[in-house]
């Protein structure tokens, strides 16, 4: 899950603007990882060495891996190992930013190293989606302060990100939480009763709703219709069900889920202990609104 928060870290460090991040997230699908970014991430090369290798490649008719070996920056074994690396989200994001000219290899190297240091994470931790790692990251990042329900909120949001990775995809960046206000349109709502009273909402524009539903249903949907709403509703139902199981197992508190509803418009200004968590996917932003 550290992968997903890397984009947010770049925003906080003002290394990338929200507009550029949004643009780059959309182009990530077609981004191909290059050897330089992989070598920087693995700690085999510095950004300066990568730049030198790229400059050299313009003068010789060789592949970049061969140039890097010839220049003594990498061994053949390291090149082979790097080419086998699975493309992680944070690397694809970095590559897309470099490809679009929004960041240099040096800036990427510095940002990646500071991010790893500040969060005490190793490369292996990047895709660690264990409950403890997720909860710790979410707690540190959002620092929810809504009294006795703060730990429920942390649990809810960390499970949400895990379920997004599981059911929708890992190409997203969680954004800062925002206070609720005004009206929203085109949203799916599920209330939770029993030992905890909560309202959970998914809100997005039509295009993001259709893509979100398509990914969840594993079908190519084209219209923001009743079927699309049913798919998004089922995602929130599954997520809330898993949350209810966790709460029951951990605290013995039993939750009751109510049937999901769809609203064209909904006033959310009166929701108590509520926040909006926008999640930027490559296809658009989906807002998760939680009131506990």
């Amino acid at each position: 899950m550290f992968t997903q928060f890397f984009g947010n870290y770049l925003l906080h460090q003002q290394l990338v603007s929200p507009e550029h991040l949004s643009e780059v997230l959309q182009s990530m699908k077609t981004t191909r990882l290059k050897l330089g970014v992989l070598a920087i991430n693995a700690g085999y090369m510095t950004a300066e060495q990568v730049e030198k290798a790229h400059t050299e490649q313009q003068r010789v008719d060789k592949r970049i891996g061969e140039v890097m070996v010839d220049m003594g920056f990498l061994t053949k074994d390291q090149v082979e190992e790097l080419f086998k690396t699975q493309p992680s989200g944070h690397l694809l994001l970095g590559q897309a930013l470099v490809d679009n000219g929004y960041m240099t290899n040096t800036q990427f190297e510095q940002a990646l190293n500071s991010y790893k240091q500040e969060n005490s994470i190793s490369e292996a931790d990047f895709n660690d989606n264990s409950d403890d790692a997720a909860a710790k990251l979410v707690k540190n990042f959002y620092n929810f302060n809504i009294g006795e329900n703060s730990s429920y909120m942390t649990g809810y949001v960390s499970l949400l990100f895990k379920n997004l990775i599981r059911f929708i995809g890992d190409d997203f960046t969680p954004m800062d939480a925002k206070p609720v206000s005004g009206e929203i349109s085109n949203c799916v709502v599920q209330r939770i009763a029993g030992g905890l009273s909560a309202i959970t909402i998914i809100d997005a524009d039509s295009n993001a709703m259709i893509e979100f539903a398509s990914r969840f249903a594993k079908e190519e949907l084209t219209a923001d219709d009743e079927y699309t709403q049913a798919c998004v509703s089922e995602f929130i139902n599954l997520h809330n069900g898993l949350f209810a199981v966790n709460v029951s197992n951990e605290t013995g508190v039993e939750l009751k889920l109510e049937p999901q509803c769809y609203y064209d418009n909904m006033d959310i200004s009166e929701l108590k202990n509520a926040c909006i968590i926008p999640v930027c996917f490559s296809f658009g932003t989906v807002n998760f609104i939680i009131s506990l």
Partner: protein
Amino acid sequence: MSLKVMVCDDSMFVRKKMKDAVAAAGASEIIEAADGQQAIDKYKAEKPDLVFMDIIMPVKSGVEALTEIKAFDSNAKVVMASSVGTQENLKEAIMAGAYDFLQKPIANEDVAKIISKASQ
């Protein structure tokens, strides 16, 4: 295999997925219901051999529908399905006479196993 199966869920997405899974497992006829009351009415009219019933539904919940169906036909085979797979929900479904319990998201293999068991 001659097996009439009713799929009851308020989500048209889940009904579609369930119908596909039930058809792939060899059911000869499939009926749909979108809430607990429809499930009761259609059960009485159609007498399906097996029912897959969501718990969280409007109008009448799955457990309420199960209770009424069992009162009408004590041999009814009703499989309860829910995203909330807690011991509490499982116990409630069993106490109400459920034939089996499935946690969502429902795997096609689990549907096939239940259909195979019900047709024996």
